[in-house]
Structure formats: structure tokens, C-alpha cells
């Protein structure tokens, strides 16, 4: 049965792929389009190799099936950070030599130029996205608007319902940061029973005024419908609603929890060397900047965040909208995938039990 599943998945993934030197698999939608425009097309034009982009609901699943079936047709895949770590541990990915990545324009080695955690044994970060919170600017006066993570939990000063993601991940960290835990201590605190109790106690203070959301699109919708006055959300969704649709939304970056998205090479990729060259090109300072001009996810290199980046509409400066903007990172936390692979089930059970009480 497993064989059949693997084969059929692999077959589905294969069909529709034209012959190409490098096949990149990503998430489709606005995200896949950004990587196509910023990485796939320019790389093909610059090197003369053929390159195509194919879509998957979650690229980590088909590439695992392909490697297990011994029929790999994808050379590069864009996967979540936790998947990049897990698949690497399971031996599904090629290792990537960090010393061969493109140096910064001023000559700084890539390993020093990337943010900590952005280059792992088997993956290189292509962007950074963040869990942030945003509010409706029509609900608060400009001089009395929320500014910190703690303000999200202050119902007296900032009345109105709150939107929160229905899940333990990123919510518990956010509660601790709002409670005054320094970003560096968040995971050590959350690893203790007292720390978990502290996070839930903080959530208890707003529990009766929370509207829980599950799908990423729900958060901006709740804000637009006036159901909540502020909500946690993925920063790209709020940017899309604010800049794309002109909604009066403002992101509060204090207490943001950010995460890398990784380019990986599946084990047995048909054109491994070209795939490595593609990754080198895409994760160069310019490649990362190009992607950030299409979508509001931050380039994970210091050198890529120096000069301002313009959005493709030609008038919006991306800087203030990116998780990697230095001003946005003053009180921020890098998601620990190590912590969550260990505690996801346990904390989610506790979270669900807490929700229903």
C-alpha cells in the first residue's frame, strides 16, 4: 500500500513537468509567482539553462515520496524550516556546502552574511516570514494606538475583541513575550511546567474576548469584518490586505515571531550540480532582494537589508513591511523548530484542553 501511495504521488507530481535542466517545486500562488519571477526566470536567462517551476500543496510531501520511490524529478524544493530539518534527519536531502554560497557584494563570506539559523546542513533560507499582530487603524486614535506585544493583552486600554491563531505554536511564545519574558529566554521558560502555566495564565486574561482563527486568510478577514479590533496574523497576509486592497491595517512588529523558508535539494536530484548553482544564484544578496520586491517576506542576509527595496507597484517601500527590517526586529524571536518537534503534540493537547475549559 505504501508503495502504491508513493508511486501514485510521484506519478502525479511527474505529470505536467516539461523537460528542464532544473525543476523547482514551490507552493504556488503569490509565493510561487514571486520565486518564479525573482529566481527561476532570471537564473535561466543568466545561465542559458532551462528551468521550470512546478507547484505543490506542500513540497515537503511529494519530495519525500519521490526519494522513497527512487524516482526524483525535482531538483530544488521550497519547504518549511521544520520540514527542512526533519527531512535532513531522515536522509531525504542532499547536504549543502555553505562555503560555496554567494558572498555578499562587499566580499563578506555567505556564512557570516546570513542571519543565524538561515543556513542549515541541508537547506538555505530563501526568505523570512513572521507571526505578527495587526490592528484596525480606524478603531484607535493615532496617539493611542497599540505599540507593544503587551498592549495586545491590555483590554482596558485597548478595548475590542482579539483574533488569535487556534494552536499552541507562536501563540504561547507571544503570550510569554507580552508577559515580559526576553526573547532569548522564551524557549527555556516554555520548557518548564511553570513557564507553560505562565503562558496560559497570560492567555487567560483575554480568553473570553478572543476569536480564534485557523486558516491564514481568516485573520485579515476578521479584521476587515470588524469582528476583532486586533489580531495575530502572518505578516504577508496583512501586507496584501493593506497595500493590495487598501485596508486600514497596521502591523505591530514588537513581539514578532519569525521563521525561515528553505530551499533544499532532494537526494538523487537529476541535476544536482545545476540545482546547487540555482540555489547559489537565488540566495545571493540580489536574488533575495528580488524576491522581497515581489512579496513582503524578508531576505535572510544582512547585506540584502542595507539598501531600500521597492515593491513591484513602484511606490511602496518594502523595508518597513519586512520582518527583517532592523527597526522591526528590536523585540523579535526566531521560532525554534527543535523545541516544537519535541513539544508540539504535548503542548497542543494542553492547549486544546485549555480551550475547551
Amino acid at each position, binding site marked *: 500500500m*505504501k508503495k502504491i501511495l508513493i508511486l501514485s504521488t510521484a506519478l502525479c507530481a511527474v505529470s505536467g513537468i516539461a523537460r528542464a535542466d532544473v525543476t523547482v517545486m514551490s507552493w504556488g500562488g503569490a509565493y510561487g509567482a514571486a520565486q518564479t519571477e525573482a529566481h527561476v526566470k532570471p537564473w535561466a536567462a543568466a545561465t542559458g539553462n532551462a528551468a521550470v517551476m512546478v507547484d505543490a500543496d506542500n513540497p515537503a510531501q511529494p519530495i519525500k515520496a519521490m526519494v522513497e520511490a527512487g524516482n526524483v524529478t525535482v531538483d530544488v524544493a521550497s519547504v518549511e524550516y521544520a520540514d527542512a530539518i526533519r527531512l535532513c*534527519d*531522515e536522509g531525504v536531502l542532499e547536504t549543502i556546502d555553505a562555503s560555496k554560497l554567494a558572498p555578499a557584494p562587499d566580499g563578506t563570506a555567505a556564512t557570516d552574511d546570513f542571519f543565524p539559523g538561515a543556513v542549515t546542513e541541508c537547506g538555505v533560507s530563501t526568505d523570512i516570514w513572521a507571526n505578527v499582530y495587526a490592528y484596525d487603524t480606524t478603531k484607535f486614535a493615532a496617539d493611542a494606538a497599540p505599540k507593544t506585544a503587551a498592549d495586545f493583552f491590555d483590554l482596558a486600554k485597548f478595548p475590542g*475583541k482579539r483574533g488569535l491563531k487556534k494552536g499552541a505554536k507562536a501563540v504561547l511564545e507571544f503570550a510569554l513575550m507580552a508577559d515580559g519574558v526576553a526573547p532569548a529566554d522564551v524557549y527555556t521558560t516554555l520548557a518548564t511546567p511553570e513557564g507553560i502555566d505562565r503562558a496560559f495564565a497570560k492567555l487567560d486574561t483575554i480568553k473570553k474576548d478572543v476569536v480564534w482563527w485557523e*486558516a491564514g486568510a481568516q485573520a485579515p478577514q476578521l479584521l476587515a*469584518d470588524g469582528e476583532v479590533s486586533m489580531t495575530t496574523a502572518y505578516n504577508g497576509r496583512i501586507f496584501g490586505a493593506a497595500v493590495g486592497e487598501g485596508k486600514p491595517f497596521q502591523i505591530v512588529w514588537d513581539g514578532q515571531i519569525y521563521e525561515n523558508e528553505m530551499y533544499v535539494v532532494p537526494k538523487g536530484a537529476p541535476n544536482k550540480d545545476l540545482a546547487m548553482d540555482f540555489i547559489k544564484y537565488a540566495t545571493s544578496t540580489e536574488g533575495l532582494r528580488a524576491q522581497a520586491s515581489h512579496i513582503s517576506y524578508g531576505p535572510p542576509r544582512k547585506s540584502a537589508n542595507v539598501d531600500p527595496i521597492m515593491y513591484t507597484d513602484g511606490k511602496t517601500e518594502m523595508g518597513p513591511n519586512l520582518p527583517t527590517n532592523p527597526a522591526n526586529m528590536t523585540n523579535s524571536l526566531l521560532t525554534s523548530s527543535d523545541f516544537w*518537534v519535541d513539544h508540539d503534540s*504535548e503542548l497542543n493537547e494542553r492547549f486544546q484542553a485549555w480551550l475547551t475549559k
Partner: protein
Amino acid sequence: MAEAATTLLTTSDGRPLKAALATAQARAKRRAFLLVLPLLLFVLLTFLIPIGYMLKRSLEHDGFSGSAPSLSAWFKQQPGFDPANPPEEAYAALVSDLALMQKDKTTGMAGTRINYTVPGTISLFKAGARAAKDLQPPYKEALLALDPEWGMPRLWRAMEAASSPYTTEFYQVATDRKLGDTGWARGADQDRIYLYLFFKTFLVSGAITVICLLLAFPVAHLLAVLPMSKSSLLMILVLLPFWTSLLVRTTAWIALLQEQGIVNDLLVWAGILSDDNRLQAMYNMTGTIVAMTHVLLPFMILPLYSVMRVIPPSYARASRSLGATSWTTFRRIYVPQTLPGIAAGSLLVFILAVGYYITPALVGGADGQLISNLISFHMTKSNWSLAAALAAMLLAAILVLYWLYDRLIGIDRLKLG
């Protein structure tokens, strides 16, 4: 009589009639079998094998036993070892397995398997595997110096249990039990969730079934007694939402019922509610029940309609002419004849409601979660075995209900339309 019994009936060419008949029937049977063969294969491939595979997954996981051969072998030779104080040989076997895991890149699989029952062990295994080849004997001290968690009795209990690929541990977790230092025990109240959600899922599904029945009965009756031209128009009204995407209907209910939604706006505009006292009808149990009832209503109307359509109106007329009141006629003549439809509709709605996932996920809010939402959580977090154990328990509960239904009403009376 005796003569008849001994004389064999034969065909015209002298073969015994019984054998000839058997051959002819065998041919017909083969043909009939070939006709149903595609269906049989389809059911086997899409239904029986996946369910069997799922049940197997709930009882089997070789993530640890497959990647830790030395320790697994050691556990087999030492059935009565003390998890609180494992001897040096056990640690030596563990260290050699950790080195092997690092080489084969199976640390993630082994750590994940143990992490299911002892949270926090994936990173423990990763760190241990990275350091394993540099460790020197005595391994017990070396490993404990690396991380004292290697000495946890519950970790050793978990490893012993995981040294065989077959396990009932996932069912222990699915019934809110936790592995402690002294063995499996009832989990702390703040962590207990699965049994509560099972109970709640069945309660909510039962409530939805009853509401559906109350709403569907008059509609189906109207459909059955109206003249064809009017009833087909009404039928379209029933079927249109049935053909509309589930997601669209759920989202429509959100737009209608949310706090700043149409229903609340109308009530405030009409002065029935004040602006700061709007109805909380979405993102809670009310929202879940309303949206699910609407989504599942056609599954009740259609079987009821198919049964009611063929009930001859003359029975009711006869009852009235014999002096029964309209209530007695309804209760003693009409309802008993609709029972197969009621039973089929209720069974259908109940079973669909028990497994519902997307509607409670979107409109459920804090208290509208059902067991399917947690099954989906574990599927996406790649703890398929626990998801399978929860799903198997759900399946078992439904089979019990089905059996009860068969005993009480009789499955041959089921009429789905």
C-alpha cells in the same frame, strides 16, 4: 420413493442432471462475479486496504525498533530489567545504536517514535547521536554526563516498549493516559482532552441529528404531497445548497451570523438588540451546530422524501374515516411508515456529523472543536499512528452504533432513496 431416490435424473446426453446444472450455474456465477469484479477491486483498493492500513498503523510503528537493533536485542534478553536503574550493557547498546542512527540518518525516526510517549526526546536523541561516536566507556556515566535525561525511568520504559514494532501505546495516549516513571497512568486533568472530545462529538452529532429530523420532516412531507410542478421547484431549493461547495456554505454562515454580520446588523437596526449587546452566534458551539445542521439537512430530507412519496394517502384517509383524530393518525399510521426513512436519514446525518472536520474548524471557535479536528492535527504533524488510533476508536464507536441500529430497527429496513 426408494426407487426414485436411487434413480439418478440425467440429461438427454446421459450426464447426471445435478452435475450439468452445477456446470451451468458455475458459468453464470463466474459471469456475475466478473461483472462485480471491478466494483470489488474498487472497494478493496479505496476502502478496505486504506482502512486496514490505518488500523495497522495504529498498532505498529518500527521507527525505534528498526533503527536501534542492539538495544532492541538487549531488551529481548532482559525481560525483567529495572527501568529506574538500567545496567552498563544497556547503555553500551544504546550508544552503539545512537552511533548507527547517526550513520544511517535515522535519528529523527527513532526520536520521533519515543517522543510520542516521552515529550522532549527528539532533540535528546539528536544530541546523543551526534556525540555517540566520541563517547568512551563506561557509557552510563558518559551518557548521563551528556544529558541527565538519559537516566529517566520513563524514557527506558518507552524504549523498551518501542523495541517491538507492535504496540498499544497509541491507544493509551488516545484515552488520555500518560507514560510516567512508574508506567502508564491517568493524565493530569489539564492535559485530558481526547475522551472528552469523543463524548462531545457524539453529543453534538446527536443534537444535530435531532434538529435535522425536526426540520426535515415537514419539508419532506410537503415535498411528497405537493403536486409535481410545485414539489420540483421546492426540490430545487433543497438541492441547490446540496450542490454548493461546503466551504462556500460555511463561509456564508460566517457572514450571516458573526457579531458584525447581517443577522446582528438587522436586529440592531430593528431595535431588538442594542449595539453593544450583539448575539454571539458564531465561533462557538451555536455556530457549529447551525452551520452543520444546514450542511447536513439534505441528507435527512432526501431519504425521508423517498419513503414518504410512496406512502399511499388512502391509509391516512382510512384511519380518519374510522374515527381517529389527526394526531392519532399521524402518530400511529403515518410515522411508523416513515420509520425506514427516519432511520436512514438519522444514521446518515449522525455518521457524517461524527467525522465532520472543516465546518467546526472554521466556525467552531474555542468550544466548537470536535475529535476530527485533533485527528487532522496529528495527521499534519505526521503522528499518523495516534491519528489512526483515534480514527479507529471513532470507527469502532460507529460500528457499535450500527450494530445497535441493526438490533433495534433492522438493517434491511434501511432506505436511502
